[in-house]
């Protein structure tokens, strides 16, 4: 019965989405306050209904109601509670329900919190959101209904794919989806602005927090996925340049560009048309990502068995929204007038360079991801574009951008002086260069690219902290004065410092792990020792293992450094009961300098075990860096400028803003 309530709520949400789409857009065009108020209620009702459906499904998982096909296929009564809950989105139908739920929550949040939005703009934003919701709810109800019943009900479920039974992966999809779907708000704002033919500083101020929130969620979502791949998949890598990973990287790159270009629109009333286009691209890439992951059209190490027919449905949605919004853009963009002027060397100029490079990098990733598909369609050749391609294209594009990052915040708006920035930053640059050269000398036989990476990472961190300390007057004013300046600073400025420094930290980790990793694969009997990096590993032996829903063996290893014991590591091979599917749990010893990583392998014919060991220098920097970027995003979101005193649209147009309007 409860399941039918959820099913009914879902179908009702579909009808409400259609209503939300129509009443908002029609109400806005008529400027009818009553209709627009109804539109706001529709957005809220939509969030409540889908939320209800979602919790009903979650309830079915928690109580193991195997009469629901989706629960039967993806759950098992012996599964720990956390994985019963995360199992809701650990499959196609449930994850699409999560997708529309997050979409509806964003729509409801716009309806609730966008109090100082002009009613017409708000109604149009909600209308566009409603259209996206309508399309995806149709997809869920018609092709991927999670509430389908089974009769007779099976006694036991088939279990969740054990590789997904992991804490980091339990929360990876919600965060990633919050990032993907959050970009729909920027998209809706862009389409609404195109319909109105009006983009101004106030518009940018309203869009920025939503874009920033998406970026923040995407950052942590990608980082969680990468962390999971690092220790759960057992190959010791953190990024595979796999289509599914690229699908999340592309929206991240464009969202990064968007949060920067929206600043220019807000502060200087320039780059307006470009920012609209970026908003459309960012969400288009989110849709593309959803399509790539859900259709299984590209071969991916992360792919799960999928149904290609669903892919066509999403492809249809993709075509409709990207084609529709770009057509609207082509018709309406000429109506928007260009805004403020600026010299090539200026804060605006630097942000333009940021946008150009990020978009070029996203384009390079796009080509590498879709080229195999295009080639196969054209002449049937099956090819793979792997890491070497991305290292050759993405790397050289990003390094110049990273070098420019510390300069950007130092430049003044409109017109900046290179020599003034040089005078302020030369010491920071010298410090970073010294670190890079020191690494090069110490590591003279190692790859020079690693020294470059560490140098650039240091430059980002030092540059970010340098700018902050200049603002605080560190060393020039008393500490208490610096502290009160820090408290008085806009939180977004501190957020930016954190995000840039976190990026530098992650970069150091990425280069350290990629260029200095030590790998050793040996067959070991109990008592054998092996060497990896500066560590000695002793295989103590293996014991049988019994978990709630798996059996297996656990291998115990003593970790020694300079003959002294440092840690005891265990690595497990688990066999999950319902599916008989094996997984490996790696043993990980993390220090600031690097990680020791042990993965238990297969039993050899001579009775030993193959053991794979890595020493991954600086690996933890990657995720610490990402976590700091995430914190930076969160801190910026709490900036009161985004909430209080958000600008009202100027009613009496001054000549300056008039030039920027229609």
């Amino acid at each position, binding site marked *: 019965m409860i399941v039918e309530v959820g099913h009914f709520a879902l179908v009702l949400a579909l009808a409400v989405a259609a209503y939300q789409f129509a009443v908002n857009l029609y109400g806005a065009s008529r400027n009818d306050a009553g209709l627009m108020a109804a539109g706001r209620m529709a957005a809220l009702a939509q969030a409540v209904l889908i939320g209800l459906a979602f919790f009903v499904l979650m309830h079915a998982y928690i109580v193991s109601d195997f009469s629901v096909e989706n629960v039967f296929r993806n759950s098992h009564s012996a599964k720990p509670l956390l994985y019963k809950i995360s199992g809701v989105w650990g499959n196609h139908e449930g994850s699409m329900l999560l997708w529309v739920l997050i979409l509806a929550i964003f729509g409801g949040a716009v309806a609730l919190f966008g109090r100082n939005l002009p009613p017409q703009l708000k109604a149009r934003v909600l209308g566009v959101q409603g259209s996206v919701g309508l399309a995806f709810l149709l997809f869920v109800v018609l092709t991927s209904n999670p509430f389908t019943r089974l009769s007779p009900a099976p006694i036991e479920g088939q279990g969740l794919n054990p590789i997904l039974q992991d804490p980091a992966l339990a929360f990876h999809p919600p965060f990633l989806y919050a990032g993907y779907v959050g970009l729909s708000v920027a998209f809706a704002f862009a389409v609404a602005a195109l319909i109105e033919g009006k983009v101004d500083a106030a518009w940018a101020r309203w869009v920025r927090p939503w874009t920033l929130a998406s970026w923040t969620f995407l950052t942590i979502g990608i980082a969680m996925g990468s962390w999971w791949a690092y220790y759960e998949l057992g190959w010791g890598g953190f990024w595979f340049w796999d289509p599914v990973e690229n699908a999340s990287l592309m929206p991240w790159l464009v969202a990064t560009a968007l949060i920067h270009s929206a600043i220019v629109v807000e502060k200087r009333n320039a780059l307006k048309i470009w920012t609209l286009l970026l908003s459309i691209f960012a969400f288009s890439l989110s849709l593309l990502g959803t399509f790539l992951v859900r259709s299984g059209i590209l071969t991916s190490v992360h792919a799960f068995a999928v149904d290609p027919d669903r892919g066509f449905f999403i492809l249809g949605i993709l075509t409709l929204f990207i084609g529709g919004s770009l057509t609207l853009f082509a018709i309406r963009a000429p109506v928007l007038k260009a805004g403020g002027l600026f010299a090539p060397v200026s804060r605006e100029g630097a942000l333009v360079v940021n946008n150009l490079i990020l978009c070029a990098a996203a384009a390079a990733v796009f080509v590498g991801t879709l080229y195999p598909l295009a080639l196969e369609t054209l002449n049937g050749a099956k*090819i793979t574009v792997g890491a070497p*391609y991305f290292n050759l294209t993405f790397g050289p594009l990003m390094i110049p951008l990273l070098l420019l990052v510390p300069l950007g915040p130092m430049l003044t708006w409109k017109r900046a002086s290179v020599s003034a920035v040089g005078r302020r930053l030369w010491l920071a640059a010298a410090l970073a260069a010294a670190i890079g050269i020191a690494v090069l000398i110490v590591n003279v036989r190692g790859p020079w690219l690693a020294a470059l990476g560490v140098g650039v990472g240091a430059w980002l961190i030092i540059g970010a902290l340098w700018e902050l300390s200049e603002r605080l007057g560190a060393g020039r004013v008393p500490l208490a004065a610096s502290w009160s300046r820090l408290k008085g600073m806009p939180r977004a400025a501190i957020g930016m410092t954190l995000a840039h420094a976190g990026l530098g930290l992650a970069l150091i980790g990425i280069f350290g792990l990629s260029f200095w990793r030590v790998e050793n694969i040996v067959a070991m009997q109990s008592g054998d020792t092996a060497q990896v990096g500066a560590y000695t590993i002793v295989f103590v032996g293996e014991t049988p293992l019994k978990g709630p829903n798996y059996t297996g063996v656990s291998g115990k290893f003593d970790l020694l450094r300079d003959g002294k014991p440092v840690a005891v590591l265990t690595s497990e091979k688990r066999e999950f009961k319902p599916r008989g599917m094996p997984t490996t749990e790696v043993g990980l010893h993390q220090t600031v300098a690097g990680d020791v990583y042990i993965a238990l392998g297969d039993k050899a014919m001579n009775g030993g075990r193959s053991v794979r060991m890595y020493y991954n220098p600086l690996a933890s920097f990657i995720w610490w860096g990402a976590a700091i970027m995430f914190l930076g995003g969160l801190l910026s979101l709490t900036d009161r400028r985004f909430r209080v005193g958000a600008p009202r649209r100027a009613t009496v147009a001054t000549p300056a803003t008039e030039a920027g309007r229609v």
Partner: protein
Amino acid sequence: MTRKQKRLVMILSGLAALGLAAGLVLYAISDTIVFFFTPSEMAEKHVAPGQRLRLGGMVEAGSVASADGVNHNFVVTDTIATTKVHFKGQLPDLFREGQGVVAEGVLQPDGSFEADTVLAKHDENYMPREVADSLKAKGVHLGKGAGP
């Protein structure tokens, strides 16, 4: 600078960035792509040894052998032709006899294949699409849930 000149600078810098990206992409793509073959395609097309490629098919039943747990030998088959593969390392958890596999590496002069990567899957029902397509094209019957 006038508005027009500024716009020109913007457009030129945009084109420069795109040009650089396009150049890098073209250079990288010609150099780094890896072709996919099944054992019989490898025989038909007379693939030269030394080239980096991906080999896909099914792991022949009873062919997997590893004396020391580190060096693995197995045979990849598309039921028409077979290729012997040697791989040093750890096989992925879902590597099994009779199931689809993709190995990346280099074809040796003696016709065997030296793999440095054997691709993992996340799902026991998943079969790499190339493998599924190629096998289907050769009329090989695929078992339940064997890929799209």
